[in-house]
Structures are given as structure tokens and as C-alpha cells.
């Protein structure tokens, strides 16, 4: 090969990568927890702090774990989608109120509606860290064996629910 073509060739490769790079989101970090067991926790219920919410109670079920907070604007965007999904009865959505004030969270749910059968409270953000949460909202799909099968970073939209979440849940249900 003509060695004078070398700089051009390198440049073409770099441009190719940069072109692909334009379509990627550098801020989205894939979770290493997908395919692993969902970390255990036992957190008080938001509605009734006496009661304890633990993933072990949900063994044998396919469920979603949604990290949210009343201070989070993305959660507001996502909320109608969750309400819709909850109403369809396809899959139960369990909530984890992340680093929030209890009364504000309760007001939020009263005002906008409550899609969750149970909401756990993660006041110190410890459960969040164990799940690798780095910004709310984040949603995990957990299978019957208690394995994480999918992680949604950022708000769920109806398209993702229809094309990803529901087919995945159906597949996991049939296993």
C-alpha cells in the first residue's frame, strides 16, 4: 500500500467511529447487574412504615422495580405511562421511593395517582447504590427466580413499554 495513504485511511476509520458516536448516548451506562440476582433489601413501606418490603416476597412472580422520587421531574414525565401499565394489569410495578421526604412522596402519589401495589422507602439511597441507580427514574424487570433481566435508564415511555417491557414480561412469565 502507498504509505502516503495511511493518514487518510486512519482518518476515515476515525470519522466512521465519530459518525456512529453521534447516535450513542455517552451518559447512558449499561448495568452490570442485568443477568444477575436482584440485590436483596428489606425496606419499610411508604404507606405503613411498620411493614417491610423485601424482594423475597415476590419470588415466583415477574415484576418491575421502579426507583422514583417526588423531587424528580423525569418521574413526573414517566408517571402516566406507569399508570397506564398498572391499569392494564400486565405486570405489577413496585416502587422504591429514592431519597425523598415521606410526606412529600405521599402527597405526590395522592395528587397524581398511585400505580404501585407497594412502595418501599430508600431514604439513604442505599438500595439505590446496591442496584447501581445513578439517576431516577430507573426501572428494573425482575423474573420469577429473582434475576434482573432488563434495566431502563431514564423515564419509560409507552413505546418502550409496548416494544420491550411487555414482550419481555410475557416471555419471562411463560418460563
Amino acid at each position, binding site marked *: 500500500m502507498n504509505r502516503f495513504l495511511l493518514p487518510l485511511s486512519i482518518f476515515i476509520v476515525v470519522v466512521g467511529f465519530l459518525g456512529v458516536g453521534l447516535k450513542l448516548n455517552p451518559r447512558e*451506562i*449499561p448495568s452490570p*447487574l442485568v443477568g444477575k440476582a436482584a440485590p436483596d433489601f428489606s425496606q419499610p413501606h411508604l404507606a405503613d412504615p411498620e411493614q417491610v418490603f423485601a424482594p423475597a416476597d415476590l419470588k415466583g412472580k415477574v415484576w418491575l422495580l421502579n426507583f422514583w422520587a417526588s423531587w424528580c421531574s423525569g418521574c413526573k414525565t414517566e408517571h402516566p405511562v406507569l399508570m397506564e401499565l398498572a391499569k392494564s394489569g400486565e405486570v405489577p410495578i413496585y416502587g422504591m421511593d429514592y*431519597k425523598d421526604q415521606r410526606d412529600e412522596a405521599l402527597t405526590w402519589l395522592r395528587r397524581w395517582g398511585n400505580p404501585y401495589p407497594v412502595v418501599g422507602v430508600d431514604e*439513604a439511597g*442505599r438500595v*439505590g*447504590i446496591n442496584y447501581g441507580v*445513578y*439517576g431516577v427514574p430507573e426501572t428494573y424487570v425482575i423474573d420469577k427466580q429473582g434475576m434482573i433481566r432488563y434495566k431502563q435508564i431514564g423515564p419509560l415511555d409507552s413505546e418502550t413499554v409496548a416494544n420491550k417491557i411487555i414482550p419481555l414480561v410475557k416471555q419471562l412469565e411463560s418460563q
Partner: protein
Amino acid sequence: MRWLVLSLMVCFSGPVWAEEAKPLAEDPVVEARLKHLAVELRCLVCQNQTLADSNAPLAEDLRREVREMLAKNMSDQEVIDFLVARYGDFVLYRPPLKATTTLLWVGPFVLLTIGATALVVTLRRRARKVVDVPVTDEEQRRVEQLLAEGGKRS
């Protein structure tokens, strides 16, 4: 003026006033280790900051978590493993050496080797071409004379 001097003197001599400030950290040893670790860890929510520099709430939580682990005498590697298990290699500013990062780590030195080799080869080849392979002793002598002149000129 006298009043000012007097009050200054009071300020400097008063035992109540000159108390040494307490460090923010409870355990200076843990804090030093945290600092050492945190500059190599990436704050996930920030644009591009280390865990040590960031004021984001998540960074604060993670510092708290790391501090607790260090206080329990866990090794740096254990702390790193803990974070990598949750957030992936993304948290490490020093990418671990793996199949996918080999090029990253050896690249600079490969580049240097290629560059150095290319330079030496080019200079050799060039020296042959430019001096256009002397045939006679007479020519060789003349070239050397010219080279010597060129050297002196600067």
C-alpha cells in the same frame, strides 16, 4: 486605633479565640484513603468529575458508602470491586487491563515504537538515496568534504 490594636491583641491571645479548627473527617486515616481512592473514581451523574471533586448527592452517598467500607478495614480492591459490580468499569478512571482495553494501554508505546522505527528506516534509506551511492573513492571523498563543510556552516 488603639481600640483596634487592643481588640486584635485580645483576638490573638485569647485562649477561647485561638482554638484549632477540627478536621471535618472523624477518622483522618480513612479520609486519606478515601481521598486517594476517590480521585480515581468517576462520579456517575456528573459530566466528567471524580468522586472526590463532585458535590452531587449520589457522589456524597457513594463517598459515605466507601468511607464506611474503609472504616471496616476493607482493602481498596474490595471497594473497587463493590463499585464495579454495581456500576461497571465506567466508574474507574483507570481502565482495567482487559482484552478490550489492551489497545488502549499498549497503543501509545506501539505508536512510539512504530514512529522510532519509521524514523530510523527513513533516515537510513534517505541517506543512501541522497548521497546516491558513491561509486568511486574520489566521489566518496568529495561528499564527505561537502558534509563536513555543511556541518561547519551552522
